[in-house]
Structures are given as C-alpha cells and as structure tokens.
C-alpha cells in the first residue's frame, strides 16, 4: 500500500463519512426531541435518491403517488381525532391539496428537460413532506410511550417503507449523475468535483442547522423540547408541532444525503437501512446526544469502512458493525450515574 492508495481511500472514507455525519445529526436530532430512534431515516435517503434517478430518466416519479397516499392517510387520522378536526382546513391544504397540486404540476412539466437544480427541488418537494406525515400517523398518537415502544414502532415503519420501496421502485438499483464532473489535481492526488460537492453540502447543512438552532425561535423551541418536554409544553411549545418539525428536518437531511450518495454508489430500494445504520454507529459514538462527537464518529466510520474494504472487503460490514461493541463498552464505562427517581 502506497501513499497514493492511502490518499484515495482516505478521500473515499471522508466523503462517505460526511454523508454518515449528516444522517447521524438527523438521528441525534430526532431522538433528542421526540425520543424516537429513527430507523426509517435510511428510507428517506433511498427514496430521495431513487426519485432523483426517476427524474433523470425522464419518468414520472412514482413517489408522488406515495405522497398522495400518505396525505390521504394523514388527513383521515386528523379527521378522526379531536385535535385534528380543529385544524382540518390546514390539514386538507397540506395533506390533500398540496400532493395533488404537485402531481398535477409534474404531469404538465417536461421532466426530461429540467435542469439539475429543479430536479433537486422536485425530489425534495415530493419526499420531504412524508416526514411530518409519518410523524402524525405513526408517532404522534403514542408520543408519550416509552422509548422501547417508539423504537419497535420505528422498526415496524421501516419494514413497511422497505416493502413500499420495492413495490414502487422495483428490485433494480440506480445511480445518478454527479453534481460536478470536474477533477482537481492536488499534488499527485486527483480530487473529484463530486467529493467537494459532498463535503461542501455537508458543511453548509451543518452550519445551517447550527444557525437554525442557535438563532431562530423555532430552533430554540426544539432545543427546549429536547431538554424538557413538559417544561417546553408549559411554555406553549406544542410537542406535536415540535415532532413534525423535527421529522421535517430529518426528512430534508435524509433526502439530501440520498442525492449526495446516489452518484457514488448504486442505491437500491433497501440500501437506506445499512447506510442509516452506519449513521447510527456514528450517532452512538456521540451517545445520541453530542453533535460534534457524532460527526467525528461518522468520519471514523467512513474511514474504517473504506480501509477495511481494501484489506478485507468481504468483512467490511462485519468490521464496521463490530466497531460498535468497543464503543458501547467505552460508553457504558464512562456513563455511570445514580438512577433518578421517576
């Protein structure tokens, strides 16, 4: 192994690590605010990537029908609950009118001729609203349930979404066009333009999230909910709104990571899960609480993966997932505390 290979593997690792970092941030965010361990994060990634692939292929993306279905379901849940009925007008607007309008718009657009930026926006517009809808249907009715019940629901949702993914995208994987074909030479090292796009986008997103949480009222409301749900509620912050907002952000991050990862690897309907789990390993390194540690963990996971695929490619995933065990051991040794009264 020479310096060139090390540099190449390192570049690969850091690129993937940046994407894992985004996922890890979303997982930490969702857990902190709603106590949901968000296993379906990976499905948003896969659906985003595959929607983009469909748009590039000039096809009408089938995820739109999924959005319409999700919307109808959410509207039904709202209509059957007392709190939902109070805001039924808004619910009809977002859950019925918006998906249908989007479907109509896409029907009229010449999909094959759209510029890349428009495709990115359309992919986001289709997949992201399903985040808050998912929260409304699956999690809001049991928002106060123990973490374990939420976790099992989360796993159940993941299964259903993978099944739906196979149904609408089929078993074939897709790869999308990179956002930049440029190549830069740095000494003897070739740096792909897409790598820079991934790193840049990750940094921009992380900074944007930081500003959102630090400077905006909604961001502070989410932080308050994460620290103390009841306290936040007494201050007039609706836990339901906080939950939907969090799932919205998680879906945005999921879809963007999907768009970033699709040019690097072929994405299948079920690829999201493994990629998401690697984000998990990173998030757990951060104890599901610390953003910088989680981001650092993500880079570590990315590097470990790219180097182990060079040495022992068959055992790549074994190595990454076994990494979690020493991490957990370290976590369990460092976090000793007297059990609190409940």
């Amino acid at each position, binding site marked *: 192994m020479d310096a060139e290979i090390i540099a190449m593997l390192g570049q690969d690792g850091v690129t993937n690590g940046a994407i894992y970092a985004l996922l890890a941030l979303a997982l930490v965010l969702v857990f902190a605010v709603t106590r949901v361990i968000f296993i379906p994060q990976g499905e948003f990634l896969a659906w985003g990537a595959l929607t983009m692939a469909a748009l590039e292929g000039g096809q009408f993306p089938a995820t739109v029908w999924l959005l319409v279905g999700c919307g109808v379901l959410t509207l039904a849940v709202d209509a059957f609950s007392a709190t939902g009925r109070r805001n039924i007008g808004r619910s009809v607007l977002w859950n019925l009118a918006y998906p249908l309008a989007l479907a109509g718009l896409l029907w009229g657009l010449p999909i094959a001729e759209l510029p890349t930026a428009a495709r990115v926006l359309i992919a986001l517009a289709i997949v992201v609203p399903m985040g808050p809808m998912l929260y409304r249907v699956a999690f809001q009715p049991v928002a106060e349930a123990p*973490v374990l019940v939420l976790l099992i629901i989360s796993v159940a*949702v993941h*299964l259903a979404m993978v*099944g739906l993914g196979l*149904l609408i995208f089929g078993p074939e994987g897709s790869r999308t066009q990179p956002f930049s074909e440029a190549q830069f030479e740095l000494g003897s090292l070739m740096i792909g333009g897409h790598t820079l796009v991934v790193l840049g986008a990750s940094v921009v997103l992380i900074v944007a999230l930081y500003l959102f949480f630090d400077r905006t009222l909604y961001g502070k409301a989410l932080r308050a909910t994460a620290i103390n749900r009841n306290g936040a509620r007494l201050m007039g912050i609706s836990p339901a709104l906080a939950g939907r907002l969090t799932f919205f952000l998680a879906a945005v991050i999921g879809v963007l990571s999907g768009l970033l990862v699709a040019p690097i690897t072929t994405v299948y309907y079920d690829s999201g899960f493994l990629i998401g789990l690697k984000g*998990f*390993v990173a998030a757990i390194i951060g104890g599901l609480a610390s953003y910088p540690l989680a981001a650092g963990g993500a880079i570590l996971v990315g590097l470990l993966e790219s180097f182990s695929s060079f040495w022992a490619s068959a055992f790549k995933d074994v190595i990454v997932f076994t990494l*979690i065990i020493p991490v957990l051991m370290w976590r369990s040794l460092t976090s000793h505390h*007297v059990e609190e*009264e409940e």
Partner: protein
Amino acid sequence: MNANTQTRAAPGAPSRLSPKLVLGVFLVLLVAAPLVLPEFYVTLLNYVGLSALVALGLVLLTGVGGLTSFGQAAFVGLGGYTTAWLTTAQDLPGWLAFIGSSPWFTLVAGLVLTATVAVILGSVTLKLSGHFLPLGTMAWGISLYFLFGNMEFLGGHGGLSGIPAVSVFGYELLDNGQFYYLVWAFVLAALFTTRNLLDSREGRAIRALKGGMVMAESMGVDTSRARMVIFVIAALHACAAGWLYAHLQRFVNPTPFGLHIGIEYLFMAVVGGAGQVWGALVGAGVITVLKQWLQDILPKVFGSAGNFEVIIFGVMMVIVLQRARDGLWPLIAGLVPVREAPKAIDSAAAPLARKPQPPMGETILEARDVTRKFGGLVANNNMSLHVKAGEILALIGPNGAGKSTMFNQLSGVDTPTSGDVLFRGKSVAGHSSREIAGLGMSRTFQHVRLLPKMTVLENVAIGAHRRGSKGVLPAAWRLDREEEARLLREAAIQVERVGLKDFMFAEAGSLALGQQRILEIARALCSDPCLLLLDEPAAGLRLKEKQALAELLRRLKSEGMAVLIVEHDMDFVMSLVDRVVVMEFGEKIAEGLPAEIQKNPAVLEAYLGGV
C-alpha cells in the same frame, strides 16, 4: 370478562374452568394435530413451534425483564450453523469429528458455544441503559449475519446442505409429522421451565428488574447477574430452535438468521403479549400463519411478486402498538375463563434462619462527618448521626435540607465525598447497596417502588431474596419447592405483621398509596434486618393507619430493631421517636429529645423563619 362469566354462571358456583382441564385439552389437541391435519399444516405448525421457542426467550428477556433484543435470529444461526458444520464437514480433528457424529452432541456443543457468545456480548451490552441495548443487539445481529455469509467453511451465502436427520432412541425422524413431536417436546419443556422459573425466587428477582435497579439492589438482588441470566436463557432458547431448524430443513444458509428475522421474532413476542408465557405461542402462531397466508394471497390479488406481507406486517405492528400494547394474549385469555388458585401458603414450612440480633443499645449505624458535594454544591456537610438497637431516630428538616441525599449515603445508593458510614462497626461507605442489604440494613422508598402487577405476597417475598439460595436450574425444574414454601411463609408472616392480611393476594398496584407504603415496610422486614431506614412512611396515611404504623414501629423497637425515619408529619414524629436530628442546608443544626427540639430556637428559625 369477569362480569360476563359470572352473570352466565349458576348462582353461587362461578363456571370457571380448571387450569388442568384447559391444559389437558391443549395437550390432546397438540398430540392429535399431525394425525388429522394435512401435511401442509403440520409443516406450518413445526415452524410455529420453532418461532415460539425463540419468542419465549424474548418473553423472558423483553416482556418480563425489560431488555429488548433484535438480535435473537443470530443466536438461532449459531445453533443451526454449529450443528450443520459439525455434522457435515469432512476431515475434522478427532474430538470435533466425535462431536459431529451425533446431532445430540452438536446440540450440546451449540448450546455451550451460544452461552459463551451470549456471555461475551452480554457483558458488553447489558450494562447499557434503555435504548442503547436494542441498538447494540441490532449491531451484533448484523455482524453475525454477515459473518455467516462470508465464512468459507460455512459455505458462504450458499450455505451447507446434507445435514443428517435426528434419531431418537435409534428411530430416525425423517418426515415432518415425526419431527413435529420433537419440536413440540422442546416447546413444551421451554414453556414449562419458563413458567416455573418465573414463579420462584429467581423469577421474582427477574421480575423486579422492571421495578428499577435501585429497588432490586436494595432488596439484595444482583441485577447485573439477573440480566445476564435471562439474556443467556433467551440465547439458549434461540440456539435450540436453530438446531431444530437445521435438522428439519437438513440445509442452512444465512437468510433466516438476518436482522429482519430477528425483528420478526420480537414482533411475535410483542403481538402475543410480551410478558406472558403463552403469549409467545400466540404471537408465533399468528405471525407465522399470517405470513404464510399473506405470501399466498397477496400476489394473487396484486398480481406481481412484491414484498407485500412486509408492508402489512409493518402497518399491523404500528396498529397493535398504538391500540393494544399488551398484545393478543389478554384478549384470548379473556375468552377462556380459567380458575386462578391463590398461592398456597404452607404454615408448617420450617422458618427461615435468622441473623443473630444485636443486643439492645448497641450502636448499629453511625455516620461520621459525611460530606457529599455535587460539583460546587454541598448537599451534605459534615453530617454525623448514630442509631442504636431498640431506638427510633427521626431525621427531619425543611424541603431541600439534604435529607434524601443523606439517606442515599447511608443506604449505599450514593458514595460520600468524604467521611465514613459505619454499620455495626464496619465501614460501608462505597459499598453497594446490595452488600449493605446483606448485612442487615433494609429500606423503603419515598416514591413507592413496587411491582404493581405482582401480588402483595410476591412483592414482600422479594425482600427475602438473600435468605434463599436456590438458583435458576432448580427453579426451572421445581426442585426449589421446599425453600420456596419457607420463603412464602416468611413473606406471609410479614404481611400479617403489618396488617395487610386481607390483601395478601391482591395486586400491589390496586392498593391505596398508604397501604403501598406499609407493604414496603413488610418487604423490608422480610429481609431480616436489624436496621430499618424509612423514607416518609406516614405520607398519605389516614389517622387510623398512622396509629397502626406507630404501634408497629414501637413493637419493632421493643424487639431491638433500630429505626431511622425521615418524616414531615411532626405529630407523628414527636409522639413516636426517641431522638431527633434536624438538618438544614445540608448541615445538622440540632439533635436531641423531641421535647428539646420543639423548643430549640435554631429549629424554630429554620421551620418558621424566626419567631
């Protein structure tokens, strides 16, 4: 359900079925099933049995013990692959070849290997609190799955075939109908032993895990051991299922041992009703049959081959967890009204051995200059106090004075920053609350910590945990009945002693708060203590109950018990106790007889803000 059955019954004689009858009918149906059912259903029942075995482990682990695992399929794989490799591989070294000569030897080998792996994984992951544990199980579940698929000698993703059939007494089990009896013998043995285990000393310790670690440890339960025990048992159940699977299919590949199948096992336990032994059977049956049915029906309806059953599964799970979190078993149990016999208490059982009681007047507990700092906050500053045998000491003070912190230092829940705590002349600062409980200190909790679904008697019997010694295996095979009778007798005596005799077999959660506090005292007494630490025992009691409690405490005192109580009810304290220690801002501001304390200017200042 009760109301219904009773209105239908003849007056005076509730028409409830005897449990033996219901079990008998179930067994007859089980034995007759392969003789009357077509081959297809027998095969299906075999798979139900295999899954039920794994789900049963999860009932113990998740439903009863509160530890969620998504990784059980990996343990099934360990069992399956061990036997597959040992019985099919050529050129094994001598001793391995010997083990491989019979599936029964490979079963033992698989169980030993699984137990070893489970102990290693458990010692790493079981310390993790709440949600970290299930995530950890997911991670090693995936790791083991990829390992199965990537090991050359395990046949890679293609797997291993040509696994021999199992022989029982020289009779080869070749078809599904014959194998059926082997599978269900395993399931029944597992059901029987799990049920026995839960109804025993170790079982109560396992059930106590859900009541919080602090409570269980204070009652002398080694919670890390109890967690490890159920983790290993669940893994062994899964391993046995894997062994059966390998010899039923005569072929293994990695697919049935992946994470998704592990998730399915957890679903079975949850759908059936995690926490119910029979729930495992119901869950395994419902999910296996439903899956088969969905795989048959859905492609016909929707045309193409999709993964429809997964979608329906996921949606169904969400609905079950939103609407019926206790699973299906309670609903089914409601349809068949089985008579529940209250536990028999053998009043002739030999009494439990008691520790020698210290002589009257001996100093039992002494705190010397105990200081506890949380960062810059000094919660206890140079606190000293002592309690003698045959004396009741009250620790009082305004809210936030540091009484609870002091209580935690004394009982071993927390460790003092400096200073020492002596129990019967021996330093116990820094020792675990479990060790301290073993020395003869027992306590109650300010916020009642009971197991609401267990009876009063069983809750009290947890207190006697350290006075018994029979472990998991004797409990599973009912070799612990003599000791169990003695433990229950002791518990019954303590229940009567505190005046809860009428509620002996009621669920603890159905008692009023005041009675629950009294129940905690009975539980503490059951451990044969020489010092009782009572945290606000009179809160929530009515006047009569307070008088009864005071009477009980006086009686204990006259028997030589040392009692330390933290209490806010001044009438209760002043008429009962021998001495009072008053705390404010983490420090002792007064100590003396009740009458002196009532006149002490510093105390009046603290309580009334100056007079």
